[in-house]
C-alpha cells in the first residue's frame, strides 16, 4: 500500500511540473500585465523598463525555469496586481473556496444519492418522475444562470439571502476563516453552495439511478429479498454498496472540479475564494497567481484521485485481495 502511495506521489510531482509549464506558457497569451500595472501617464520607457526588470522579455523556457526553481524553494512569487506574496493570497482565499466546495459536495452527495436510489427503486413513483425532470434542468442550466436566477428570487424579490460576499467570518486562528459560525455567514453560504452543487447533485443522482437499476436486476438482490430482508437494508446496504466504485470515481473527479471550477459561482456571488482570485488574475495577466493557482489545482486533483483510489480498496474487497495476490506473486 505504501509503495502505491509513494508511486502516486511521485507521479504527482511530474503532473504538477507539467501543468506548471503549460500554465506558464499559456499565461503569456492572456496579454501584457505591464499596462495594468502603471497609469496612463507612465512613459513608454518606464513600461519597457518594468517589463525588462520583471524578466518578461526573456524566452518562456528561461522564465519558466526561474519560476519552477523558486517554487521548489517555496517562493510562489508576488502578485503583479496586488503586490503581495502569492502564498499569502492563497492562504487568505483557500478557506473560502474549501468551505464552499465541501459544503457543495456534501449537499450533492447527501441529496443526490438518496434521490438516485429512490428514482431507481420506485421508477414509477411521481416523486421519481419529478426528480428526473428537475435533474434535467440541473444538468442543462449553466451555473451562472442558476446563480443569477437564485439571486433574483431570494435576494432581490424575497430579500431573504445576500447576493454577494461571505457575510461575517470568524477567524479560527492561523488565518483560517469560516462563515459557518455566524448567521450572516451561513446565510451567505446557501445560494452559492446550491448553485455549485446543483450540477453535481443531478449528475450523481442520474449515475446512482442507472447503476442501481442494473444492480437491482441481479440475482443476489432477488435472493436478498427472498430471504425476507427489509427493503431498506437491501437497497442501501446490498445494492447501493455495489454501485459505489463508479460513483466514487465520478464523485472524486467532480469534487476536484468543484474546487477548480468554483470560478463561475465565485464570480457570480463575489465569493472571495481562489476562483475569483484566478479570474481577476486572468483579466490582469497576473502570471504568478495564474501559474500558481493552476499548479495548486493540479495538486488537488492528484490528491483527490489518490484518495479515491484508496477508497476503492475500502469498499471493494476483490481489489484488496487482488492487490495482496500481486504483491505476494
Amino acid at each position, binding site marked *: 500500500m505504501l509503495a502505491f502511495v509513494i508511486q502516486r506521489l511521485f507521479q504527482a510531482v511530474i503532473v504538477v511540473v507539467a501543468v506548471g509549464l503549460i500554465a506558464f506558457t499559456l499565461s503569456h497569451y492572456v*496579454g501584457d500585465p505591464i499596462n495594468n500595472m502603471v*497609469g*496612463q*501617464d507612465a512613459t513608454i520607457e518606464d*513600461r519597457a523598463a518594468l517589463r525588462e526588470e520583471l524578466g518578461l522579455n526573456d524566452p518562456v523556457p528561461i522564465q519558466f525555469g526561474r519560476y519552477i526553481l523558486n517554487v521548489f524553494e517555496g517562493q510562489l512569487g508576488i502578485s503583479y496586481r*496586488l503586490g*503581495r506574496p502569492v502564498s499569502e493570497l492563497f492562504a487568505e482565499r483557500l478557506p473560502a473556496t474549501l468551505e464552499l466546495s465541501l459544503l457543495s459536495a456534501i449537499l450533492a452527495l447527501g441529496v443526490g444519492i438518496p434521490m438516485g436510489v429512490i428514482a431507481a427503486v420506485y421508477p414509477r413513483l411521481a416523486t421519481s418522475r419529478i426528480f428526473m425532470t428537475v435533474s434535467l434542468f440541473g444538468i442543462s442550466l449553466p451555473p451562472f444562470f442558476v446563480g443569477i436566477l437564485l439571486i433574483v428570487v431570494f*435576494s432581490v424579490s*424575497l430579500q431573504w439571502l445576500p447576493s454577494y460576499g461571505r457575510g461575517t467570518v470568524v477567524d479560527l486562528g492561523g488565518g483560517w476563516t469560516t462563515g459557518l459560525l455566524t448567521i450572516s455567514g451561513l446565510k451567505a453560504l446557501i445560494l452559492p453552495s446550491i448553485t455549485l452543487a446543483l450540477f453535481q447533485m443531478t449528475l450523481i443522482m442520474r449515475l446512482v439511478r442507472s447503476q442501481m437499476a442494473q444492480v437491482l436486476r441481479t440475482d443476489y438482490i432477488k435472493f436478498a429479498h427472498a430471504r425476507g430482508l427489509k427493503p431498506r437494508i437491501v437497497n442501501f446496504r446490498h445494492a447501493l454498496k455495489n454501485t459505489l466504485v463508479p460513483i466514487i470515481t465520478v464523485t472524486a473527479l467532480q469534487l476536484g472540479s468543484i474546487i477548480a471550477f468554483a470560478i463561475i459561482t465565485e464570480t457570480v456571488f463575489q465569493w472571495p475564494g481562489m476562483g475569483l*482570485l484566478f479570474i481577476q488574475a486572468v483579466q490582469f495577466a497576473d502570471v504568478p497567481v495564474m501559474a500558481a493557482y493552476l499548479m495548486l489545482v493540479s495538486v488537488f486533483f492528484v490528491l483527490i484521485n489518490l484518495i479515491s483510489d484508496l477508497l476503492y480498496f475500502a469498499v471493494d474487497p476483490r481489489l484488496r485481495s487482488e492487490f495482496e495476490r500481486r504483491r505476494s506473486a
Partner: protein
Amino acid sequence: MNFSRLKRTFRSAVAAAAMGVIAAGVASAADFKWSFSGDAQTLDPHGLAEIFTLGFQSNIYEPLVRRNSELALEPALAVSWEQKDDVTWVFKLRQDVKFQNGNPFTADDVLFSHQRASSPSSDVKAKLRSIQTMTKLDDHTVEIKTNGPSPTLLDELSDFFIMDKEWSEANNSAEPADVRKGAENFATRHANGTGPFAVESRQPDVETVFVPNKDWWDTPEHNITRAVFTPIGSDATRVAALLSGEVEMIFPVPLQDAARVEANPDTKMLRAPELRVIYFGFDTWRDELQYSSVKGKNPFKDKRVREAVFYAIDEDAIVEKIMEGAARPAGVIMGQGVNGYTDELGARAKFDLDKSKKLLADAGYPDGFEVTLDCPNDRYVNDEEICLAAAGMLARAGIKVNVNAMTKTKYFGKVLDRDTSMYLMGWTPPTYDAHNILFDALGTPQDNGQGKWNMGNYSNPAVDELQKKIAVTVDLDKRRQLIAEAFQIVKDDMAVVPLHQQPLSWGARSNISLVQRADDRFEMRWVKVN
C-alpha cells in the same frame, strides 16, 4: 413584486414595533455601503495613477489643491498660493491639520511626499514633471520652482497626495511599493492621510471599512458614520445588490440595466456625460497598412478616407441604440468640462453616407477596402458593441471592417506597440486640461513621452508647435485661443474620428444624495443618507 412589497412592509412593521428605539438610532447613524466593479489596486497614493484608485484614495488622502463638485480647483492642504514670477510659486499650508494617527501636518511632509512621488517606483512622477524643486520656507510655507512657466501646475497638484513623513519612514514605506523587489509595502494596505475618512480595516478584493476622520480640518457635508466598500465584479450581482438594498450605491450600472434601476421606486439612476471621449484612431504613418486589403499604400494617410469614415458613422444611432440615449456626441476628442472646450469645437457634423461614398471615390477607393479594427471589450462602456455597430455602418460606405475585439490586457499591449491599423480608444486628460490631449494623444511621438498614446502616430508640426506654446502660456485668454486653434487643425485634419462622450452610469438608493463628478470619481465626502 406585490409579494415583495408586502414582505417589506411586513418587515418594516415588525422592525418598527420591535425596536422602535433602535430604528430611530439607525436613521441618524448612517451606515453607507457602496460597490464598484473592481477594487482599488493599492492604498499607496503614489502607487498607481489610475482613475478609480486615485478616486478611492481621495477619501483618505488629500492634495494641496483639490477639486470641488464641479471639478474647479479649491484650497485643501494649502490655504493660499501666489505666483512670484513665471516659475516660482509659494504655497501657504493649512495650520493645525493632523494626520489620522495624530501627527501634525507640516512642510516636511509635503517635501517628503514630493520626494516619494518622484522616486522610480512611483506612478505619479509624470504628473509632477513640471516641478523642478520644492523648498521649505518655514513649517507652513513651501516654495515650488517649475521647469518653465507652468499654467497647469495646480491641476497637476490636485492628484498629488500628501503622506506623513514620520509614519511612512517608520513603516519602511519611504518609497512606493515595487513588485520588482518582490516584497510588500506597508502603505499598500494601510493608510494614514489627512482626509475625511480613515481606513478601519481592509481586505483587498473583499471589503474596505471607512470611518469618518473626527479631526478633519474641513466641515463634513456628509453624515456617514461608517462606510463599507465591496467590489462586485459581476454586473448582474452588483445591480441585484443595489435593488435588494444590500448596498446603497453602485457604479457602473450597465446601460441595459439602467431602466430596471430607474423603474424600482427605491432606487435611482444618476447619469451625466463623462469627460472621456471615445474615438477611432488610424495608422497614419506606415506606407502600407498591416491589416488591410490595400497593398502598397496606406489609405488612412489620405485625409479624405478618414473623413469618409467620419461621415459614414451615424453617431446619433449609436447614442440611441447602443448607449441607450445616455452618451453625448462629440465633434472633437475633448469632453465638455475639459479646460479649453468650446461648443464650436464640440459641434459634430451630420452623418452623410453619400458624402462618405464620394470622399472614398475621390480618394481612389470607389469600391472601398477591407481593414481590421482593434477594439477592447472590457474597458469602455459598450466598447465592443460600438465597434460592431460602426463596422455595420462603414460597410454601407464600402469599407469592410473586421472587428478584432479583445480584453483590455491584450488590447493595450497590442496598440501601444503600434501593432494596429485602426483602433477604438477613450481618453480623459488626467489634468482636466486640453494640453494633455494634444501632448499624449495627438502629439508626434517623442522620447519625452509626447504622443505615447497616439497609436496611429498622427503628426502635424503645427499642432506640436501650438502644444508647446500652450504648455507655457500663462495668460488664460491667450491660452484658450491657442487651444482652440490647435484643435481646429486636429478637427480639419480629421486626425481621429471622435464618437461621443461616454455616460457616467451610477445607481443609488432613493434616500442617498451624492455628487457625481464628470471624471467618474466618487468621493464619499458629499454623501448624505436621508
